[in-house]
């Protein structure tokens, strides 16, 4: 929900007429807006519901590895945070390219952790 609110607020800034104190090239943040919405909200909603509702992995560990589940959550949101900080810096020529590399690695880790933890729970009766 926090990402959805952030995305909608950023969307207002991107679409609004130039405001005092807001750089006129704010529209370069379109990819940040899109990823806050699609990764931060939609993907995270899907990950959360799947973790909750999918068939049990086993009697001892019904939701697979809880540690891997928390790793998915932490990596995804840390990656998004690095992106939200780094993308404006890169777009406005203020350096910060390494922040995007870290963001990329964190989010890739989140995706792979989710797939690894969810795969064994996708099974027939």
């Amino acid at each position, binding site marked *: 929900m926090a990402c959805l609110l952030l995305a909608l607020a950023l969307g207002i800034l991107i679409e609004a007429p130039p405001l005092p104190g807001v750089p006129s090239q704010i529209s370069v943040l379109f990819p940040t807006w899109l990823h806050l919405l699609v990764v931060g909200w939609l993907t995270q909603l899907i990950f959360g519901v*799947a973790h909750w509702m999918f068939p049990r992995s086993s009697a001892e560990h019904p939701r697979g590895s809880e540690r891997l589940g928390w790793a998915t959550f932490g990596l995804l949101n840390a990656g998004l945070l690095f992106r939200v900080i780094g993308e404006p810096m890169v777009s406005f020529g203020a350096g910060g*390219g390494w922040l*995007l590399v870290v963001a*990329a690695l964190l989010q890739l880790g989140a*995706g*792979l952790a989710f797939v690894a933890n969810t795969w064994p729970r996708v099974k027939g009766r």
Partner: protein
Amino acid sequence: MPRLSVWFIRTALLNLGIGFLLGAVLLANKGVYLHVPVQRLLPMHGEALLIGGMVQFAMGVAFWMLPRFRSGPERGAEGWGWLAYLLINGGVILAGSATLLNLSPLTSSLGRAAELLGAASFGGSIWRRIKPFDLT
């Protein structure tokens, strides 16, 4: 979980993995130039995540969880669902790889058409299961 849902969701997970990998390459390339042909990878990134990942994930869960019939096959005619699975995945491969492999734009259009037919086929397979709960 029915077998069709297992196939939909596992294929969606594979697409999510591919989509996240391509996305990581594209994002890192924005930070430090990696000589990656961004314009050629971007369509596959979007296609794998949105259609191959999210849409297919939703289809698998919907086929599994929507209300079932009390008589006859409990999830209706599965054939339309399997056709949807084939069309959606064929469409993702065609539409995603057209730019990546520098194929004719017609390939991409064919992929999108396959995705449309796949969505229609899936819609047809679940249409009658979208109903209020029978409480009697």
